[in-house]
Every structure is written in structure tokens, then in C-alpha cells.
């Protein structure tokens, strides 16, 4: 008993010492296993590693991941010294895991995916490896082939920190059969004096929504859920009214007249045309509402269209009746996922080999044909992709959406700003605050958060 006690005390002390100093410093770049110096400014692409390297990649459990997993054996066959290991998990678990990987002396992950609100934050904190030199050293990569707004998200302070993986820009998905229905067309013409078309202005959208509600179908399956969701949906309305979170000089303008009009119309839509009691609805509920045939339109991710139109999919016998359009006003909220290489991984060269292979024109084309969400202009305008993928109309619309799209927020505090603004927006929709109050509070909060270092 005595000896055991002593050992346990020593163990505890050892633990204490080992665990002290919880402030890890960003590791200096250790020598990689390859013969070539790490991240050197060479004119040739990095040479393959001489010993076997295993790259650990963190992924989110989504269909785009499944496609990447299917493509990976090809890469491993071409690069026998590199093995890829995926760690897929739900979205909510990712941010913490990635962060703790950054803080550790040696990275848990060699390749990570970065959601657009995190990009500035991670880049400014020094967590990501700049990729400009890698891109320059990779022939045929054509970084500018990525659609502008998507590409720009990975560029922070003039340096490239991430390359696009897939987009989740918003579009408007409608039940085309309802718009084409001659009976409805006649009624609408009679009532409003103009033809029933897919709306391109906010006022038209609300009108169309109310019209459908009168016919027994909800005008729009909305997603006013507090936080990220409501802001993601409403900002499209804000753009359509000519507003934005900040102007070009960085002043917060979310409490101006355009914003008030946008929010008033949004609330009117919610009250008069959306399914009742949908205050908490997020993506899942609104999708189900569309799939069950209860709603005529929804603003959602552009790649939901193929899912809804899939025979035997969630829409049942409604499959094939959905169509994708740009949101009213044409400017959409943009979301993206980028590939990035953490600063503290020893396998940067190998990581770049995988990332550049996966996002190269050839492989990206394959990925999109297999159902992935596109990011490259060349891929979206490729006839083979049209044929084997979801059709010319879909890709052309997606390209149009992406060309005029903007993310919810930029800057190192984007995540917090989005959540705070989304809280006030939800309060306004719930009737807890007036439109003016909510927007004013949102603006003040945004200024306060942005003023922090």
C-alpha cells in the first residue's frame, strides 16, 4: 500500500508538470519528411515524399464528403507514398476540434476544411499556411478559374489561405408546376393584372406568396430560426432591397432604410404566407415542407434541387417538379467550404499535393459529375458536365448565382456577428422587438464586436 501510494503521488506530479504551460506557441516549421525544404519558393512543384506519409483530413459528414472519399483511392494509386485518412463528423463538433488541433504543438489534422465565417479569423490568428507559392509552383492549376466571389473568400490580406472545396450559395427553389399551372396563371392575372412568373423583386415575392396561400399552398417555407439561419435567409432580402451589413468603407449600415424595408417585407411574408408557427424552422423543416408539397417556394442551397428532383428521394411523387432560380434581386448569400493547410503540420508538401490534385480542373470536373457542388467556371461551362450531371440549366443558373454572391460577414469576428445579428432578427420576427429596434440593436452590436482587436 505504501509503495502504491508513492507511485501515485509521483504520477500525479508528473501529470501536473506535463500539463503545465497550457499556452502552446505556434510551432516553427519542422523539417518535413520530404527531401525538399518545406514551403520553399521553387519553380517546380514539391517532390513526392520519400517515405510513406499519412495525412489526416477532417471532414463534415455530407454527401460532398462521400464523393471525395470515392475519388481518393485514385490519388493514393498515383501517389503510393501518401495515405489519406478521413475523420468525418457533424458540423458542430468540427470547429472545436479544428481549433484544438491548431493549439496543439503538433497538428491532429494535416488538412482541414474551413467554413467561410472562420476564414479571416483563422488566417489572422496565424493558424493557416499561405498557399500562394504552392499555387504558383503548380502548373495548370489556374487559380483564377474559380468563380470570383468564391475564390476571394480564401484570400485574406492579399494572401491565399484556402482553395475552394464546394459552395453553398443560396438560390430560390420553386415548384415549377405550380407556376405553370394555367388555372393559377389565370387567377393571378385577374387579381393582380400581371402574369404569374417567378418573382424577381421582393414585393412580387410577397405577392406571389400570398397568392399561393389563398390557393391552399404556403407561399414560402421560411427559415427564421434564431442565429445563423435567419440571417442567412434574410440577407438575400436585404441585398434585394439594396442594403448590406456594411458598406464599402466598412461602416455598419444594417439599420438603414433599405434594411428596414427588407425586414418589414420578410416579416409580412412570414405572417401572411409562410407555414404557421414556423418561427424555429431551420433547413430541415423547410426542406421537408417543400418535399411534402406544402410550400411553393423556398430560399435554400442551390444543390438541394437535385435532391428534391431525385426519383425515389424525399419528394416522393413530386420529384422532377422543382426548379432553381436566382433569389429575387439576383444577389445571393454565399457560403463556401475551403481546403486549408494548418500551420503546425509537418506534412505541408504532401498535403498540398492532395489538395491541388482534388481541386485541379480534371478531378474537380469528376467530382461535380458525381454530384458535387461546383466552384470552377470551366467545370460549370463544360458540356460533358451538363450531360452527365444535372443538366445545362442547373449549372448555368448556379454560375449566375455564384457570380453575384457575397458571404454573410467577413472579418475575424464573423461567427459572432452572424449569431448576434441572427438573434435580433429572430426577435423581430417573433414580435418581441420592433423592426427598428431590432436592426438598431443589431447594428450597435456589430459595431461593438468589430471594434474589438
Amino acid at each position, binding site marked *: 500500500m505504501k509503495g502504491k501510494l508513492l507511485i501515485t503521488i509521483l504520477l500525479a506530479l508528473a501529470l501536473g508538470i*506535463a*500539463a503545465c504551460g497550457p499556452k502552446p506557441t505556434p510551432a516553427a516549421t519542422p523539417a518535413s519528411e520530404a527531401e525538399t525544404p518545406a514551403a520553399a519558393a521553387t519553380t517546380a512543384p514539391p517532390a513526392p515524399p520519400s517515405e510513406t506519409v499519412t495525412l489526416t483530413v477532417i471532414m*463534415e459528414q455530407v454527401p460532398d464528403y462521400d464523393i471525395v472519399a470515392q475519388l481518393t483511392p485514385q490519388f493514393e494509386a498515383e501517389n503510393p507514398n501518401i495515405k489519406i485518412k478521413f475523420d468525418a463528423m457533424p458540423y*458542430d463538433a468540427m470547429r472545436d476540434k479544428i481549433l484544438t488541433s491548431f493549439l496543439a504543438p503538433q497538428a*491532429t489534422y494535416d488538412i482541414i476544411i474551413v467554413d467561410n465565417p472562420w476564414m479571416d479569423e483563422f488566417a489572422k490568428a496565424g493558424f493557416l499556411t499561405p498557399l500562394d507559392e504552392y499555387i504558383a509552383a503548380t502548373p495548370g492549376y489556374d487559380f483564377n478559374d474559380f468563380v470570383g466571389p468564391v475564390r476571394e473568400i480564401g484570400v485574406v490580406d492579399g494572401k491565399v489561405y484556402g482553395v475552394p472545396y464546394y459552395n453553398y450559395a443560396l438560390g430560390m427553389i420553386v415548384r415549377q408546376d405550380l407556376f405553370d399551372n394555367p388555372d393559377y396563371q389565370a387567377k393571378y392575372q385577374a387579381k393582380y393584372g400581371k402574369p404569374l412568373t417567378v418573382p424577381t423583386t421582393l414585393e412580387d415575392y410577397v405577392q406571389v406568396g400570398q397568392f399561393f396561400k389563398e390557393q391552399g399552398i404556403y407561399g414560402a417555407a421560411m427559415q427564421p430560426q434564431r442565429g445563423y439561419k435567419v440571417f442567412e435567409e434574410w440577407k438575400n432580402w436585404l441585398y434585394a432591397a439594396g442594403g448590406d451589413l456594411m458598406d464599402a468603407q466598412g461602416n455598419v449600415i444594417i439599420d438603414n432604410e433599405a434594411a428596414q424595408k427588407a425586414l418589414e417585407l420578410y416579416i409580412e411574408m412570414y405572417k401572411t404566407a409562410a407555414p404557421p408557427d414556423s418561427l424555429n424552422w431551420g433547413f430541415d423543416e423547410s*426542406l421537408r415542407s417543400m*418535399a411534402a408539397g406544402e410550400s411553393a417556394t423556398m430560399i435554400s442551397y442551390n444543390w438541394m434541387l437535385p435532391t428534391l428532383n431525385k426519383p425515389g*428521394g*424525399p419528394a*416522393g411523387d413530386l420529384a422532377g417538379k422543382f426548379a432553381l432560380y436566382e433569389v429575387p434581386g439576383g444577389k445571393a448569400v454565399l457560403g463556401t467550404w475551403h481546403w486549408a493547410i494548418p500551420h503546425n503540420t509537418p506534412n505541408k508538401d504532401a498535403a498540398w499535393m492532395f489538395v491541388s490534385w482534388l481541386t485541379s480542373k480534371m478531378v474537380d470536373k469528376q467530382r461535380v459529375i458525381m454530384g458535387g457542388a461546383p466552384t470552377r467556371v470551366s467545370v460549370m461551362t463544360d458540356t460533358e458536365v451538363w450531360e452527365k450531371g444535372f443538366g445545362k440549366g442547373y449549372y448555368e443558373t448556379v454560375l449566375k448565382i455564384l457570380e453575384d454572391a457575397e458571404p454573410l460577414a467577413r472579418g475575424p469576428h464573423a461567427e459572432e456577428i452572424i449569431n448576434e445579428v441572427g438573434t435580433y432578427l429572430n426577435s423581430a420576427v417573433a414580435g418581441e422587438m420592433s423592426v427598428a429596434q431590432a436592426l438598431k440593436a443589431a447594428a450597435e452590436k456589430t459595431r461593438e464586436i468589430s471594434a474589438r482587436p
Partner: protein
Amino acid sequence: MISRRLATQAIILLILCLALAIVIFPYLWTLLASFKTEAALNRPLDWNFTPTLANWQAMLHSEIPRQVLNSIIVGAVTVLLSLLLGAPAAYSFSRFRTGGDGARFAVLLAQMLPPAALIVPLFLLMYTLRLLDTLWAVVASHLTFILPLVTWFLIGFFDDVPPELEEQAMVDGCTQWQAFYRVVLPTIRPGLGAAALFGFVLSWNDLFYALLLTGKHSRTLPVGIAGYWTFRGIEMGQMSAAIILAIGPVIIASFFVQRYLVRGLGGGAVKG
């Protein structure tokens, strides 16, 4: 008198059946959902759907069964460690009044610390010890609240054991430790069982620590079920199947366990 008794019985039965219906209805609904296709799930009032086994097949081939195993292992190890460390300590608190009343409170308080306060340092500790993505990291985090609870529970049971028992044993030649180990401990076996069961249930249910401390190989069941909530919506069919898998054995086991639990708990824990 007889009719009055029958009336009482009838009312009691009615209330209990109502309670039972409230408890069982969600299970039945989830069971039903596990056999529905995506399209059918979107139409809850449509009773004419064709049942499918696809959800079950997908779920059983996914990581879920492995995660069930992980949860069981974590629970068992946590409980084992809690009993090994907690029983002697509880005996010390009870028999010797070590640390006085303050110590007992401290033990109780230790288990109500908000997990959010402990998670980041725990993570860094586990990282330093190279225990991340192992079941040991989860066990360590579970010990933070299960070990104190088990100890606190057992103190009550030890309080109920008359000191004459050990005194008799020591008269017969045992040391105090032997008296504890050979005589007192077996007496509180129902208490140990109840504490073990509670500890296991608490470990089984934890999501917060498991979400942040587990990796691909060490994921536990709650994390697996939460994983069905993807960026692209909740996969309700498979998730329902996973939930049924998680609760089915529990319902069956509770038939055997509940009598034992009630007797064990009455022994002493609730008397504080």
C-alpha cells in the same frame, strides 16, 4: 367495500395506463419512423406508406454498432473505477468522518461542476498524455462527475451498516481493512449495484464531453445519434432506427433491473 376497492383499482389503473401511454407513445412513433422512407417521413399522417428495411440496414452497417460498443466499454470502465476508488473513500467518510461534514458536501459539489468549465483544460491534458481519440479520454471526463456521485451514494449505504459488524470481525482477528473488504462491503452489495447502475446510465447518456473528446475510433453512441443531424438535414429514418437500437435493450433490461434498483436504493442512499 368490494365495489369501492374495484373503483379505486380502476382509477389507479386508468392513471397508470395514461402514464404508460405517454411514455410508450414516442417509442412506438420512432419505431414506426424507422421503417419509413424519406418521402413517407415527410407526410406523418399518411398511413398508407410501404415499410422499408433500408434504414435499419444502413444504420447497422454504419458506425453505430461500434459506437454502442464504445459506450458500453466507457460506461463499464468508468463504473469500475468509480467503485474501486469511491467505495474505500466512502467508507472512510462514513466510518471515520474524515474531513467532517464539509468533506461530504465537497464530494457532492464536485459532481455539479459545469462541463463547459472543465472541457478545454481536460482536452489539453488528454492531448499531452496522448490519450485523445481513445476511450480513456472519455472515461477521464466521465469520472469528473460520476466518481463523486458514486462516492456520495455509497456514503449513505455505509452509514447504515452497524459498526458492530466490523468490530466483531476485528475481534475475530481481521485488520480494519480486511473487515471492510470481507465483511462490510458484501453487506452493501445492493447499494454497490444501484450506484453502478446509476453511474453507467450517466456515462451512457453523456453527449457534451464525448462530442468534444472523441475521434473516429472512440465515438460513443450519443455522438453517433447526434451525427445524424447533418448540414443537409436530419436523417430521420436512420436516426430513428439508431434510437430504437439504443433503447430497445434498455427496455428489456429494465424488466429485470427495476426490482433490484428499488430495493437497493431504499437501503440508504436517499437518506442522504
